[in-house]
């Protein structure tokens, strides 16, 4: 009994002490919350650039729309939650038009940081327009939430101020393509790529991947990103009698490349280009069913849907909501990348213990591998490069009133079998 009483007494003391500590802690937290709320900014400023004209406009504008969609969603729900202040804060979007010019973009990135004092910075579409932001952001200790710049060179051990939040690092993109080519026993492969970080990284990965399987490309050349005349290049490629032709370019390269092949008098069993999977409506319009049919591309969301997500809307929900908000804008990958990137920024704000750029970087780094959004898994390397998203190989099939892109590799994700070689005519 004595023992019981002593135990009960000890428990009572512990409970009382614990209660007191809890009350004190709660009081302290309440005090901290009040102090934080008082110091909280009136708005979270999100800065981005877009290109209303020029080579990257077709991709940049939908990415910008994706960011705008997220801002509207956040503000409708009372703002974005900022853990450092334990409250939701209204989001303000500041965006400037760089007209697809990296030089203009460099000036505007500086303006966003030094004059607009943005809290969240999302660079413009692609590697070419993001490149100027990387060093500027690093110099100003501003974290970049990179949506679609996937060049390997941006992610280095000594730069903590960039996190790949949308598209997978382009060096990883061709991995399924390598496996597909090997599985199909395609050994004579021609690779033409544009001389920029985005395309060069893909070409290098494909080249290394093939060589690891004892395949040496019969044609491996780069060309200027501004190239739009492909007759002579296609003739040079045809002279090597390839079984597959892989062209890594931007959509402004892919369109004339695909349109020149049928008129060149040459025919290839397999043609792969990058952007039909990301901008299917544009390619349907500019290349057409006949020239696009049976070519290959990366299959990206929304063609590859993610129904189970733990952050934001899933692919189908996003498609519906986006169409409702932007009825005239097709739901394409760049739009989803803009939204997906903003979600990663949202999570960084929701998890960072203090309202600093490095705290956000640490917080989002801790979430690597745990988040799935409408564009796939968010998983980054220690350097910040996105490696979670997976881009299967898709093939364009003629269908009633146009074309449909179906996943043909890997077999675990395939929705149909690849038609190789491509049917004549």
């Amino acid at each position, binding site marked *: 009994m004595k023992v019981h009483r002593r135990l009960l007494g000890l428990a009572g003391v512990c409970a009382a002490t614990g209660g007191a500590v809890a009350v004190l802690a709660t009081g302290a937290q309440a005090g901290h919350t009040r102090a934080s709320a008082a110091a909280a900014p009136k708005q979270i400023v999100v800065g981005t650039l877009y*290109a*209303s*004209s*020029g*080579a990257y*406009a*077709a991709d940049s*504008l939908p990415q910008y729309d994706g960011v705008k969609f997220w801002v509207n969603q956040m503000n409708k729900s009372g703002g974005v939650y900022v853990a450092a202040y334990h409250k939701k804060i209204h989001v303000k979007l500041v965006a400037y038009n760089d*007209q*697809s010019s990296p030089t203009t973009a460099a000036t505007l990135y500086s303006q966003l940081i030094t004059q607009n004092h943005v809290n969240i910075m999302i660079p413009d579409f692609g590697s070419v327009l993001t490149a100027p932001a990387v060093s500027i952001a690093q110099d100003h200790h501003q974290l970049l939430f990179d949506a679609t710049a996937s060049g390997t060179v941006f992610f280095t051990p000594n730069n903590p101020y960039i996190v790949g939040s949308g598209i997978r690092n382009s060096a990883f993109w061709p991995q399924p393509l390598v496996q597909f080519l090997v599985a199909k026993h395609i050994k004579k492969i021609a690779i*033409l790529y544009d*001389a920029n970080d985005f395309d060069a990284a893909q070409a290098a990965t494909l080249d290394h991947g093939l060589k690891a399987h004892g395949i040496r490309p019969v044609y491996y*050349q*780069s*060309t*200027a990103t*501004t*190239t*739009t*005349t*492909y*007759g*002579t*290049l296609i*003739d*040079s490629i045809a*002279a090597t009698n390839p079984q597959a032709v892989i062209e890594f370019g931007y*959509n*402004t390269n892919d*369109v*004339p490349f695909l*349109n*020149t092949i*049928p*008129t*060149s*008098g*040459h025919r290839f069993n397999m043609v792969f280009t990058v952007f039909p999977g990301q901008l299917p409506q*544009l390619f349907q319009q*500019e*290349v*057409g069913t*006949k*020239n696009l049919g049976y070519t290959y591309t990366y299959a990206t969301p929304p063609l590859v849907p993610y129904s189970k997500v733990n952050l934001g809307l899933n692919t189908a929900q996003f498609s519906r909501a986006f169409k409702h908000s932007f009825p005239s804008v097709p739901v394409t990958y760049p739009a989803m990348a803009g939204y997906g990137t903003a979600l990663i920024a949202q999570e960084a704000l929701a998890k960072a213990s203090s309202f600093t750029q490095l705290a956000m970087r640490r917080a989002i780094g801790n979430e690597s591998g745990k988040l799935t959004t409408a564009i796939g898994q968010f998983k980054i390397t220690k350097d910040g490069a996105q490696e979670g998203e997976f881009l299967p190989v898709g093939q364009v099939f003629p269908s009633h009133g146009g074309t449909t892109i179906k996943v043909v590799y890997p077999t675990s994700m395939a929705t149909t079998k690849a038609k190789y070689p491509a049917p004549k005519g």
Partner: protein
Amino acid sequence: MVLYALIAGVLIGLFYGFAALGLSLAFGVLRVVNIAHGDVIVLGSYLAYELSTQAHINPLFAIPIAVPLAVAIGMVFYRFVAPSLGRSKDPEMLSLILFFGVSQVIEALATIGFSVNQDTLLTGPVGNASVQIFGQSFPNYYPVAAAVAVPGALLVMFYLYRSRLGLATRALMSSRADAMLSGIDVGRTSALSFGIALALAASAGALSIYVNGGVSPSQGTDLTTTAFAVVVIGGLGNPAGALAGGLVFGLAEQFAQSYEPNWAGMVPYVLLLAVMLVKPEGLLSRRVRYA
């Protein structure tokens, strides 16, 4: 590959020369550096695109439509800006700034009117079949572009060397003051020359949409740069030199694409530098300067 690059270089080179003719004429006659030249080519491309997609008419019909339209617009525009250029101490520099503004306006309007996306024509000017030349297959628009460019250039030559207006134009090219003293209506001749220069650019647009794989509002700057390089290689102010410059540019580009594609964008400009160092007045400048 050598034969292919050679033929492609000649065919595309003739197109480049034709596309640069208007720029050369405007500079030769008026001492006007038309930075908006490429944007006028873009407008010609859009006319061809609209004719083909909306009216289902062969895009090459854009040429006979564009010529009178561009001549009229050019003449009116020249009359509008000529007084300012005439008063300027440095009309070449003023024209550079003026046409930079015009270029920006055209690009902005084209963006509003046609969207930012690249527009392409899915059917070639004579179908989609390839054409065999000396056993090599070419897209049919290569020879079509050359077939339009050559008579187009010949017409300009005919105008310059076989017509009274052409004589007046060459007199202007030689000396504006002497032309005025000899009773030539300098204002009317200049305005007409500017209109013809715009018409040539717009006509080249009907071919450019094929050769350059499509048309977009922002394409004008690149086209102006190419035309400028072609004109400088051939000799500023010399329409015949423009064709020669086009051939050099086209051959350099196509041979580079065959053997070192990554250099294809640079090689023609290296040639430009070489020509400037060896013959700063351009390949064919003398004949017309003193014509």
